[in-house]
């Protein structure tokens, strides 16, 4: 390939392949253009799509559009293969997650039986400092191998601070933090909906 020549020379025999690749690039660009035009048109002139405009059956359409940042006020209970289509008016909901700290529901894999209210970490600076220590370790590691050792120690210190600096810790009740001679077992029988 000679310098400062913008195209393939005839003797390379790549002209046709290059043409096909170029056409493909224009087709892709056309597709992106249609998407952009559609997005702008929909924003200013299109009909407003309400909740679940397709009458779809899956759970991501079970909330309002646009969704609130908590997605569901109460977790819906799936009643069949097509959750929204098969949902009845009195479909049970899940209640009981904490309102004072972050929790998420952990269920069994196949039957989705509720098993745990798992603690989700609260807002904390430590993950950011950990990524900072990692970034410094790898960037400085270009110049000296000692950066790996020092960076690993720094990351270890940050991890230790993260371990002891759980922002949820002070919100826990005595029941959760006290000594328990017997482990808490999940409910032996399946949780059944109750009328309230």
């Amino acid at each position, binding site marked *: 390939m000679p310098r400062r020549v913008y195209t393939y020379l005839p003797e390379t025999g790549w002209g046709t392949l290059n043409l096909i690749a170029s056409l493909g690039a224009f087709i892709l660009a056309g597709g992106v253009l249609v998407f952009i035009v559609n997005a702008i048109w929909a924003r200013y002139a299109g009909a407003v799509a309400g909740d679940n405009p397709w009458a779809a059956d899956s759970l991501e359409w079970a909330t309002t559009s646009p969704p609130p940042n908590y997605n569901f006020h109460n977790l819906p209970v799936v009643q069949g293969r097509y959750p929204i289509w098969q949902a009845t008016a009195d479909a049970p909901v899940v209640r009981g997650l904490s309102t004072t700290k972050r929790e998420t529901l952990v269920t069994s894999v196949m039957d989705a039986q509720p098993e*745990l209210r*798992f603690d989700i970490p609260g807002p904390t600076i430590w993950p950011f400092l950990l990524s900072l220590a990692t970034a410094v370790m790898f960037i400085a590691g270009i110049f000296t191998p000692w950066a790996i050792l020092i960076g690993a120690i720094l990351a270890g210190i940050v991890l230790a601070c993260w371990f002891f600096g759980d922002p949820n810790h002070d919100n826990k009740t005595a029941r*959760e933090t006290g000594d328990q001679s017997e482990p*808490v*077992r*999940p409910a032996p029988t399946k949780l059944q909906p109750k009328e*309230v």
Partner: protein
Amino acid sequence: MSTQAVIDISKLPHHQFDTYDPVWWGNNLLLTIETSMFAILIATYFYLRQNFAEWPPPVGQLTATLKPLPQLGYGTANTILLLVSCIPMVLTDISARRGNRGVSQIGLVVGIMCGLGALILRGFEFSAVYFRWDSNAYGSVVWFMLGMHMMHLAILTVEAILLAIWIFTREYDMKHRVDIVTVAIYWYWVTAIWLVLYAIIYFTPRLG
């Protein structure tokens, strides 16, 4: 307002042992990744060995008849120490499940002692290999195998130290009892991986 059926999960526990807990899955999947990393390392070791007429390569011209095998002493001592350290970790594991704080504390402290001892012995193990990491391909791969395992040993020991500090100075809660069981699984894994590496580093050169 019609009545609505509610599934009340407010009485569910926050943490539970083994397959219930996301931490158990996270730890075991991490160990799966690390196991395949060690498998690649072992494959590298045998690949490099193929390219050498003598393994380990002979030292210099004058001592060409001497086969510089890694000395067995420190490696064997470390293997025994790691196997013995599984005893306090099994006790810690069982006591964390039963909720016996005192046994967990003793087991963790003894385990940490073993971990620190294994780290010191590992330092001597490097000197029991006749080559430095930059001497030849043999030195590089053996130092890397010893070093990668040492890294896991160090992380494991630090984890055990942090957990011990927690259960000595703070509460003995379910979250950290699950953590203790997780560290115990990690401990068994580090020991099991070492048995394989020990056999490969110290004994495969003696076979052929």
